[in-house]
């Protein structure tokens, strides 16, 4: 089904709420830096965009909606379009020096911070990824290579899973003998990372979109932080 830009879908949400969210996008330093200068309507961003080839998705529509300050349309796009973006920044080719990719990054963050239902849905199935990176300091760990997680990658994933421990021990760099993380991250480093999550409001963002994940992360981090002598992890 194509993208519904008729303004009907979210008519039950007040214009004030849509304007509030758009103001949050516009107040972001990245928006003010370089996300949007205007639009020539040349379509170069769309021509370069991989997502535009396979989805009903257009970085130009998003840039123009922002340039026209159409809070209503921006709300629709924030819900139904931004998660299709590949974040490759091919659209930075814009001759007006817009960065639709950056604009979309901001819109996604606003959607997450405000706990929009569509953001929660977009991140369904993504919790283990967030958990892995926030709790271990690395992502895409070797033990993620399981046949049931990547059935479309063929039988070799099964070979890797079967031989994972011994093949990891066959790697010459000693930091890479791990299976649950991509490399060995020291305990001290991990504590520092946890402090960063707490001090920058990232934990609050997680709580907004996935309370269950938030609780698990707090449990994992709390013990380590307390052992390291950090009772107060806020400013």
């Amino acid at each position, binding site marked *: 089904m194509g993208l519904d830009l008729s303004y009907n879908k979210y008519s039950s949400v007040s214009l004030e709420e849509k304007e509030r969210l758009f103001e949050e996008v516009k107040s972001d*330093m990245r928006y003010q830096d370089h996300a949007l200068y205007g639009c020539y309507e040349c379509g170069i961003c769309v021509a370069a965009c991989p997502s535009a080839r*396979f*989805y009903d998705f257009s970085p130009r529509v998003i840039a123009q909606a922002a340039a026209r300050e159409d809070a209503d349309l921006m709300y629709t796009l924030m819900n139904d379009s931004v998660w299709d973006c590949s974040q490759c920044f091919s659209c*930075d080719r814009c001759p007006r020096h817009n960065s639709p990719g950056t604009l979309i990054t901001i819109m996604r963050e606003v959607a997450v911070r405000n706990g929009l239902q569509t953001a929660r849905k977009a991140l369904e199935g993504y919790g283990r990824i967030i958990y892995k990176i926030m709790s271990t300091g690395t992502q895409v760990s*070797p033990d993620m290579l399981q046949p049931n997680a990547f059935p479309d990658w*063929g039988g070799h994933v099964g070979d890797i899973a079967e031989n994972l421990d011994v093949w990891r021990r066959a790697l010459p*760099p000693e930091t890479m003998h791990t299976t649950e993380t991509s490399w060995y991250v020291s305990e001290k480093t991990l504590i520092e990372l946890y402090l960063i*999550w707490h001090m*920058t409001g990232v934990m609050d963002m997680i709580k907004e979109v996935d309370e269950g994940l938030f609780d698990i992360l707090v449990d994992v981090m709390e013990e380590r932080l307390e052992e390291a002598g950090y009772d107060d992890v806020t400013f």
Partner: protein
Amino acid sequence: MLHLPVLKSKDRDFQLAENPPTEDHHEALLELEKDGEIIVQRVTGPYIEVQTKFGRTKKIPVEKTWHHKSCGQCGHIPGYSTSIFWLNRALGLDYLDPKDQTSCTAWNYYASATSNPAAQAAVAIRNFASAYETGYFPIIHCATSFGHYKEVRQQLIHHPELRAQVRKILARLGKKLVIPEEIVHYSEWVYAMRDRIAERQVIDMSHITATVHPACHYHKLIEEDAIYTPEVYGAQRTAIITGVLNALGVNVADYSTWFDCCGFGFRHILVSRDFSRSFAVQRKIEVMIEEANPDLTVTHDTGCVTTLDQSQFAGKAHGKKVGLPVMADSQVAALAMGAHPYKVLQLHWHNTDNKAFLEKIGIDTEKTWAEFEASVQRLKDGSKQYLTWEDVG
């Protein structure tokens, strides 16, 4: 009818503008350092000078490098990182493989948006400060980390309130706000070292044709800092990978969708993989095969190797024109210098069959696989716990 002369693009002589359209981050960083706001980590050891997109000079450190590893490389294609380390060792260069390093965590930025600029900057600077404390200069393995750290640098230069916030966070961790004078991607180091690598080449590759896929987050995301030279595509495209392959005697073949991304898409490769597969096969692999018929395709980023390689299995099931081996430039360079295809390049972690390519350059795949299995047997029977650099040659 008036006929105006038309100059074809291939005949154009590319000239750099006298005044680059972007700011010089070197000057901005030094200014901030002068004001006591930041510490700039300099390249202090031997370095090689290269030219970036708008004609500025960039220093690529030769050794004493602090290797900022990549999650996806170390986790799923470990021969990628192993080859980078192997090249350093084979060239007799000093480097550090740190444990005091986290991922750039950009997965939570570009994929799920469950982070924010302050957190991302603090993570980046924590890693930079860790490198600074060792005296080694950071070299970034992942193109996304490379691109993202350039974004972070730009934000820190222009936003005093962000600097203040990050400085306060770093102080709590007992660290300083350190930014390196150059943000260096490992493929820039491979490019800078290409002549030394070619001097030690033991595998002839002059009969090999390869296509090149430059990573989006290397040359599109903050386009400043990427290496360009008139010798490679008249400086119309980045010089990395192609410059290395040229030095190794590989025939680099062009194809029309070279600018397209690989289809990785961050969240897509994990939760919407139908898009990644379709894009990688239809817009990249099939086009490369139809237009250039290469022996392999070479790229320089985690996501690109993963997507281009892993997507071909499903493409084959759909009767698509696939079967093109995918490797990183570090792997090809190591292979040319005689690195073992399984003990060092770890090609058994790759998906698309690469035996025909290996046999074409004279490598006995049955023999080398048996050698790897014999090494692994020593781990299985307990006579060794780990293989070391001494074990892999």
